[in-house]
Structure formats: C-alpha cells, structure tokens
C-alpha cells in the first residue's frame, strides 16, 4: 500500500517544518518539567506519541457523529479516558516507569499538542491520516524533549540515562578540574535550550526556503 502524499506529509511535516514545539510553540511546560534527565524525557515522549496517535484515530473515527457544540468536551473525554487507561496499564505492567512519570502522566491530558491536533486535524481527516499526524506530532515533540534532556543531563549531572559518562576523577571534589553546570538543572535552562533549538531551526529552514 503506497501512502498518499498527504499522508506522508501528515507524518513528516511535524517532525521538522511544522514541529509542534519549535514552530507551533505547544507543549512547552512539559518540556521544562521532564527534561532534567534523559529517561523520563524518553518515556514522556513515547507516552505522548502513543496517546496522540490513539486519540487522533478515535476522534477521527467518530468525527462525523460528534455534535459540534460539545466537540471539545468529547475530545477531552476521549483523551482523559486514554490517559487513564495507559496509566493503569503502566501501573500493572511497568510499575517503575509509572512511578517515575507519576504526575506527568496525568498532565498529558492538559498537553496542548493533543487538543491542538484533535481540533485541527482529526476532526476533519480520515483515521489513517490522523494516525500518521498523531505519530508525527508525538515524535516531533519527543525528539525535542530528548535533545533538551540530553544536553541538560550531560552537562548538569555528567550522566546519560543515569550512567556516569564524565569520569569521577575529573571532578574538583576528587582532585580534578571539572564541575557540573548546576544551571542546567534549573527549569529556566530548558526554555533557553528550546529557544536555541528554535533559533537554529528557523535559521536553517529560512535558508532552505530561499
């Protein structure tokens, strides 16, 4: 089955030129909260991807029957139900991950990317396109989180995924010359890093456009 151009565009667009975080500036708050370390950022990215894709498909399937006056509430109910189910399943089958995500998992409900995609895309497109759009946006969001978390964990604690990367002997405390950048652990640093990525992204894409 060859995917139509529109379907491909629905998936690839959000990864770069129409990235939800970089271009639409959505989902910034969670980018601050979960990017101190790489692991929660990864799990959050994957969870959001799954939930956006699933809720996009569900809403797209029932889009023709939804009364327009209560459509936002319907979308919210669908998202909330999916988030609750995912959180219950995680608690049953991946308890450690569920504990690590704790409150952030519930906060996916309020992630503006979800509502944005449901309202802007799934309400007017068929399930396959919506699935692709959901996956694209989720992954577009995920790679930003991972990029930010990579920088913050590496420079902030000298680790990646919890493993020490910078040798212990380098640290001042052990007679070396190196000190972790405590600033990286502060939420403000996530904003600054996202800002830098947006800057680079815009500069690059503007050049391409010309």
């Amino acid at each position, binding site marked *: 089955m060859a995917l139509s151009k529109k379907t491909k565009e629905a998936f690839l667009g959000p990864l770069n030129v129409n990235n939800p975080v970089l271009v639409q500036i959505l989902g910034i708050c969670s980018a601050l909260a979960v990017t*101190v370390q790489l692991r929660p950022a990864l799990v959050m990215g994957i969870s959001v991807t799954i939930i956006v894709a699933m809720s996009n498909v569900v809403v797209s399937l029932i889009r023709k029957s939804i009364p327009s006056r209560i459509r936002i509430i*319907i979308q919210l109910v669908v998202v909330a139900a999916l988030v609750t189910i995912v959180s219950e399943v995680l608690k049953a089958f991946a308890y450690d991950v569920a504990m690590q995500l704790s409150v952030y998992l519930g906060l996916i409900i309020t992630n503006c990317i979800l509502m944005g995609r449901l309202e802007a895309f799934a309400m007017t497109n068929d399930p396959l396109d919506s699935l692709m759009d959901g996956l694209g946006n989720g992954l577009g969001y995920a790679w930003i989180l991972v990029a930010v978390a990579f920088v913050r964990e590496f420079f902030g604690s000298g680790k990646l995924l919890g493993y020490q990367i910078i040798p212990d002997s380098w640290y001042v405390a052990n007679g070396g010359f190196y000190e972790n950048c405590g600033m990286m652990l502060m939420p403000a640093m996530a904003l600054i890093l996202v800002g830098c990525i947006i800057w680079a992204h815009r500069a690059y894409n503007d050049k391409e456009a010309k």
Partner: protein
Amino acid sequence: MKMNTESSVYTIVYAMILVVIVAVLLAVVNQGLKSRQEANARLDQQKQMLVALNQDYSNSDPAVLYQKLVVDTLLSEGERANIIRFEVENQTKYVLRLHGQGLWGGIGGYMALNDDKNTVFGINFNHEGETPGLGGEIVTEKFRSQFFGKHIKDVQGNLRSIAVLKEGKMADEGQEQVDAWAGATITSTGVSEMLASNLQEYSEFLNDGHTECHKSPICEKMKQDCCQTKAGTECCKAEKACQQCKCENCDDCKDCCAGGCEQCCNNGCKDCKCCDKGKKCCDNKNNDKE
C-alpha cells in the same frame, strides 16, 4: 436515515452514551488490572525494604528473598506496616517505615536498625517528585550510605534522631549527623524532619526497656496529660514500658499522675476525678467557689 447532529436532543443523548461507554471501559480496565497493580505496589515496598536491609536482589526473586527474611509485623497502621522484624544472617533487624514532606511532594523510605534499636543498619529513600539531579538524589547510594552505622540515640540512650545538615554545620551535642545534598536544601531538611518526627512516633517501640523513664520526653508529656482518663491510660502504658516507673493501679493512676492532677485542678478542674488527690483538690476548689 440522516441524523441532525446539531439538535439538542442528539447532543444530550450523545454525551450520555459516550460517558456511559467511557465509564464502563475505565471500570473494566481498573477491575481487570487491580490485582496486578496491588501486587506491583506490594512488591515495590518489599524491594525498598530489601534495599534498606542492604540485600542485593538482582540475582534472585525479590518476593522470595523477602519471604525468607521477614519475621513478623510489630506495629501497623491500618493496612500499612510501620515496624517489621526481619532476620538477616541470624541477626534481628527492625525496619521502620518513614514518611514526610520534601519540596514538591511526599518523601518516604525505610530505615533498618540493628537489634539494639539504635545503630542504623541500612536506609532507603523514595520520593514522589523531587527535582531530578537535586532533591531526587536522596535515593542514591552516595546519600544513603552516609547513614550506615550512625546511631539514633545519644550515649545516655535518649532518642535523638540523625540530623541532615549542610557541610560545616554542627548538630546539637549528642546527635549524629550526615551531610545534606548540595543544592537540595528543602529536600534535605525534609529528610531530617522526617527522621525526627517518625522516630519520635515510634519512640515507644524504640525506647522499650532501654531508656530511663523520667528522662524520656514522651513519658514527661504523658504525665502532664494524665488527668484525662484516656491519656491517663496511655501514660500508664508509657510508664510501664519504661522500667523504672512503677504504675500499678493504672485505672485510677494514683501514684503516677498526682502531679498532673494538681495541675489539672489549677487549670479549671473539670474532669479531675482520675485520682484521689485530684478529686479532693477539685472538691476543695468547688467549695471555695460556692
């Protein structure tokens, strides 16, 4: 048949049906997964206790190891076990449950004591959402291992807890201390307060047979509260627990709370019938008023 999806009736019926479907779905998922979730939560607690007991469970089934070591529950609060007795390599260890408040949410943990109820054998912390890299680091070996071998009582045997202090600061005399985590002041203070308040809560257990009665703060306090019948009973319990106090006639607290009764009397004399002295004192006072 083409439905008018904009009519009010359709909207209301649609909303109702959707809500029922979602509710049923969630209920089914919740019920279906409940036993697994509870088992997970239990296993998680057991793992934490094993960590507090310095047991490595990476090569074995933690649940089996737990069952092998656990002896019995000494103190529980509802479903939660607060003090559990273990036997590790033929030595008795007590594991105390800790719970307190960090910066962003609750913090907790388990403290394992040797059978002298004084020396810390091991400890484990957990937290709901402390900042990763800062407060979240209380779970690390580096922080935890500072507690190993510390004492929660001073040389006289008074319960003192362990202070978590910034480098350079000194704890009160007789109290042992560990270093706070740099950059996580509030979480570290939370750990310190959690230890102090929880150990105080368990003081009856911790002081059992080891502390001189009249020196123990809880006993002193109980003496003062002794006039109220319920507290009086507890006072007696506490007194009994401390070996040096003799409180035989618990029900009317004759010897044990004479001082307390007098005090109570001076404070307005309402229910001062718990001991003869108090009763007399009250009668006198009432007579004076009349």
